[in-house]
C-alpha cells in the first residue's frame, strides 16, 4: 500500500514549554480513512495543524505525497484540504464567494462547475447566495467542508467533523466521506466519538499525551483487543456454580438465572463449545443465549487508562 503522508520523529514544544507531540511516527496510506482517536488535549489538533502548515514543527520531518512540508510547501499544501474544528467563517461573505475564494487561495483557476458540484453534494446549493451569518451550525460545518473540497484535494483532514452535529447530519457526513474515499481521496479524521471511528475508519490510531499509542487496522484491533461475552439464560435457577465448571471463571447473576462467560475474541472458539458441552453434562439447561463484543470505545478507554 502506497504511503501518502509520512510523519517521522515529529515533536512539537510550544513557546510555553508545553510539549504537545513527542516523537510521532505515523504513515497514512493512500486512499484510506484513518481515524485519530484521543482524549481532549492529547495532541490531535496539533498533529493535524503541523501537517497542514499552521504550526511549525520543533523537530522531525513530514512528507506529503513525497513533498517535504517545509521545503516544498506549495506542492505539499496543494494536496491538502483542511476542515478545522472551530466553525470559523467570514460572517458577511456569501457561501458562493467564500468557497470560490478558497479555490483561488489554493492556486486553482476558477471553475464554477466544480464549486456547484461541491455545494450540491453538501446540500448547500440553495444557500449559495446567502451570507454565512444566516446559516445554521450544521450548514456552517458543511460549508467548511465545501471550502476544503473546493480545490480538489487528494487528502482531506476533518478535525472533529461531527462535534455538535445532529444524528441525521452525522450520517450524511459519513456518507459523504465514504463517497470521497470512493473517488480516491485519503481522509484523516480526528474524533472522540468512538462510534464514528468504528463506523468509518479503515485504520485507527490512538494518541494520548502527545504519543501515538497504537496504529492498527480497525478490524484487527477489535479482534485483538475485543472481548466477547456469552450470556446464558438458564431454565432453572442455580444456587452456585458447579465445581466442575470453575475453570471457565463464570459469573452467576444474583437470581441464579443467568450465567456469563467472558473470553477473548481471538481465544479459541473451542472453549465455548467445550463450555456448552460441560454445561450439558452437568445437567444445566438454558433457554436462550447471546454474545456481545466490546466496542472500540471500551478498547480505547482501557488503552488510555493503561497508558496513564
Amino acid at each position, binding site marked *: 500500500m502506497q504511503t501518502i503522508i509520512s510523519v517521522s520523529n515529529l515533536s512539537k514544544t510550544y513557546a510555553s514549554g508545553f510539549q504537545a507531540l513527542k516523537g510521532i511516527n505515523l504513515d497514512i496510506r493512500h486512499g484510506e480513512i484513518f481515524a485519530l482517536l484521543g482524549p481532549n488535549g492529547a495532541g490531535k489538533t496539533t498533529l493535524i495543524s503541523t501537517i*497542514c*502548515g499552521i504550526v511549525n514543527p520543533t523537530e522531525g520531518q513530514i512528507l506529503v505525497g513525497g513533498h517535504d512540508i517545509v521545503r516544498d510547501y506549495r506542492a505539499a499544501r*496543494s494536496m*491538502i484540504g483542511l476542515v478545522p474544528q472551530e466553525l*470559523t467563517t467570514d460572517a458577511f461573505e456569501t457561501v458562493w464567494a467564500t468557497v470560490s475564494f478558497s479555490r483561488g487561495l*489554493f*492556486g486553482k483557476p476558477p471553475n464554477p462547475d466544480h464549486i456547484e458540484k461541491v455545494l450540491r453534494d453538501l446540500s448547500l446549493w440553495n444557500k449559495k447566495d446567502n451570507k454565512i451569518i444566516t446559516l445554521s451550525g450544521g450548514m456552517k460545518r458543511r460549508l467548511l467542508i465545501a*471550502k476544503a473540497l473546493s480545490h480538489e484535494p487528494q487528502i482531506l483532514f476533518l478535525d472533529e467533523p461531527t462535534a455538535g452535529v445532529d444524528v441525521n447530519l452525522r450520517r450524511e457526513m459519513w456518507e459523504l466521506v465514504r463517497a470521497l474515499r470512493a473517488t480516491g481521496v485519503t481522509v484523516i479524521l480526528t474524533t472522540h466519538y468512538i462510534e464514528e471511528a468504528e463506523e468509518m475508519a479503515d485504520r485507527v490510531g490512538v494518541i494520548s499525551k502527545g504519543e501515538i499509542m497504537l496504529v492498527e487496522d480497525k478490524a484487527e484491533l477489535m479482534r485483538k483487543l475485543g472481548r466477547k461475552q456469552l450470556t446464558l439464560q438458564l431454565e432453572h435457577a442455580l444456587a452456585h456454580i458447579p465445581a466442575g465448571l470453575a475453570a471457565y471463571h463464570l459469573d452467576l447473576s444474583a437470581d441464579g438465572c443467568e450465567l456469563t462467560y467472558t473470553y477473548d475474541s481471538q481465544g479459541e472458539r473451542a472453549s465455548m463449545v467445550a463450555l456448552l458441552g460441560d454445561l450439558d453434562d452437568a445437567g444445566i439447561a438454558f433457554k436462550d443465549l447471546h454474545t456481545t463484543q466490546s466496542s472500540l470505545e471500551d478498547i480505547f478507554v482501557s488503552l488510555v487508562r493503561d497508558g496513564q
Partner: protein
Amino acid sequence: MNIHAIRAIYAFEMARTRRTLLQSIVSPVLSTSLYFVVFGAAIGSRIPEIGGISYGAFIVPGLVMLSLLTQSISNASFGIYFPKFSGTIYELLSAPVSYVEVVVSYVGAAATKSIILGLIILATAGLFVPLQIVHPFWMLLFLVLTAVTFSLLGFIIGIWADNFEKLQLVPLLIITPLTFLGGSFYSIDMLPPFWQTVTLFNPVVYLISGFRWSFYGIADVSVGLSLAMTTAFLAVSLAVVAWIFKTGYRLKN
C-alpha cells in the same frame, strides 16, 4: 507564483471595501470637508498666504496625506487582524501561498483603497479651493509610495496586535500626533528653531513636504531627501514584514 491566490485575496479585500463603502469612503470625505470648512474657509481667510499659496490651498496636500496615512494603516491592519481574530487565518496559513504573495495581496488591496480615497479627497478639495498640481507624476508617485509604505506598517500593526485596543493604539497615539506635527497645517519654518530640528525626526514631515512640492513647487525639505526618506521607510517596513514571516511571529506557533 500563485497568481490565483493573489487575485482571490485581493478580490476578497476589495469586496470588503465595497461592503463597508459608507465608513470607508464617506466618513473620511466628510471629515476632510469639515477641515476645509473650518481651516480653509473660516480660519484660513484670516491667515496670510504661505509661500504665495492661500492657506486653504496650502493645507490640501497635508490633508490628503493625513487621510492617506490613517486609512492605509487602518485598512491594512484590520484586513490581517480580523482573520486572526475570527480564526479564518487557518486557511491562509495552510494554503500554498508564499509570504510575498500574502503581503502583495493584502497590502496591495489596502493601498489601492487608500489611493482611491486620496484621489476622492483631492477631488473634494477642488470643490473648496483652486487646485494646481505642478508635478502630477511626482504627486502620484508620492501618493503610491506613501500608501504602500503605510499599508505595510498597518499590516505589521495588524499582526502585532492581539486585541482591538492595540489595533487602535498605534494609529491613535503615534500616527495621528506625527501627522498633525508633520506640517499638515503649517510650514516647518513657522516653528521656533528648536522645534524645527525636532520635527526633522518626524518621518511624516518628509512625506508631506514632498507631496506638497508636487502640488505647488514649494517644500520644507528638499524633494530628493523626501523621496529618499520615503523609500527608506518602505525598506524598513519591508524588512520587518520579512522578519515576521520568517519567524512566524504572532502568526504561527
